[in-house]
């Protein structure tokens, strides 16, 4: 039986691995290549690596680092950060990466998705939407550039548009829940899940495996990603790369999916 995917998400800042809280205060947690080696041993389902500097600083993706990551990965790897053109995306695929994820470039120019999907196949094209709830009311907005620019675009409409243009997977990343470890934002996840049927991955808020179990109960098959949960241990957030053991993961899934 197919399992939901449980996916560590790693953030790259100044060539090191960091973890943020609400997209701020990046805390250094280690060396990215070393982290990939540990996640290989732990047999993680997939890995998402996001370079949080590239778009913000307006620089090219760090191809050397991406190649080193891809050389190590024995599981599917999704890379995001600074990709603006199909040529950049193709270069990254040739380094051995399975999926690329785009954010600000597709939010501002959704036709890039079609161009990319036509050249590399839609299953390899992912869009990540950084979403934040408005202070008043129930609406959400899509933000870009590490949550410094509010596009005022509705993520539900944006997700539908990107899917219609050829995106193979949508990642919903909650700015409010990022690094807080108090659970996922179920409201926006459910709103978007109700309108798209492509593969979907959610990120932001996991504080324990119970939070992941809740998503499995509700959605059965979903990409479930987490940052802090898989790099910190304990209330004082000591850095310790971790991931459920295979039998622990099977149990978490079977206990929650209810069949």
């Amino acid at each position, binding site marked *: 039986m197919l399992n939901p995917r449980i996916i560590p998400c790693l953030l790259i800042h100044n060539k090191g691995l960091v973890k943020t809280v609400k997209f701020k205060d990046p805390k250094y947690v280690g060396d990215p290549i070393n982290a990939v080696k540990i996640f290989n041993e732990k047999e993680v389902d997939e890995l998402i690596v996001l370079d949080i500097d590239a778009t913000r600083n307006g620089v090219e993706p760090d191809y050397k680092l991406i190649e080193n990551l891809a050389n190590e990965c024995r599981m599917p790897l999704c890379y995001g950060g600074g990709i603006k053109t199909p040529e950049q995306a193709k270069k990254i695929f040739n380094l051995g990466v399975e999926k690329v994820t785009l954010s600000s470039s597709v939010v501002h120019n959704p036709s890039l998705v079609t161009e990319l999907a036509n050249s590399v196949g839609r299953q390899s094209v992912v869009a990540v939407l950084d979403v934040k709830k408005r202070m008043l009311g129930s609406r959400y907005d899509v933000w870009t550039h590490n949550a410094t620019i509010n596009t005022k675009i509705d993520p539900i409409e944006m997700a539908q548009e990107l899917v219609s243009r050829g995106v193979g997977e949508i990642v919903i990343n909650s700015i409010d829940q990022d690094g807080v470890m108090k659970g996922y934002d179920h409201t926006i996840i459910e709103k978007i899940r109700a309108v798209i049927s492509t*593969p979907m991955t959610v990120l932001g808020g996991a504080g324990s495996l119970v939070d992941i179990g809740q998503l499995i109960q509700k959605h059965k098959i979903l990409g479930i990603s987490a940052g802090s949960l898989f790099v910190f241990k304990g209330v004082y957030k000591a850095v310790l790369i971790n991931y459920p053991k295979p039998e622990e993961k099977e149990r978490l899934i079977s206990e929650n999916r209810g069949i």
Partner: protein
Amino acid sequence: MITLIDYGLGNIKAFANLYNRLNIPITIASSPEAILEAKRLILPGVGAFDEAMTLLNQSGLTAVLTEKVIHQKTPILGICVGMQMLANSSEEGTLPGLGWIPGIVKKFDPSTIPYITKLPHMGWNTVAARPASPLFAGIDQNGRFYFLHSYYYECIDSHFILSTTEYGSIFTSAVQNNHILGVQFHPEKSHNNGVQLLKNFALTHIN
């Protein structure tokens, strides 16, 4: 030695990395001469069936591959779309396949799939292999592998089914016709199970 067939499609680098780590020599072959030297062949593939067949046909390698595989009986392992290319045809395209293992590649029926996301079939699923298969030696029955596809291989003769997997219904996830093999999943991205399978293909007597 493993010869990776380079016809412009598929993640050759992932296979090369994995075999390098195992200290098993590899060649990346894009010329007929290099294919003629092969002891074991891997046919990778991603994307659409017709695009893969077009690229293989344009590579000028089809004739030499036929000589190696059909006449010299060199073992070959097709991966994902590389497996589907071993069939006679695919519902995804109009071009003929290699036809080395009688079968037709069909699209999953979405109405049988009990999830919001019907296709692609993406993620880690269990594989039930035929007992005592050398390709699956040392791998747990119902071990998990990484899948990413929307079409599956339907064998004309059940004799060619090497493993099955459940996604809405039971489908064929690996095929074998003597020295010709194919797997629908991605062993190069399937952790220890995938490493073991690729090691088995390289080192054990396969028929």
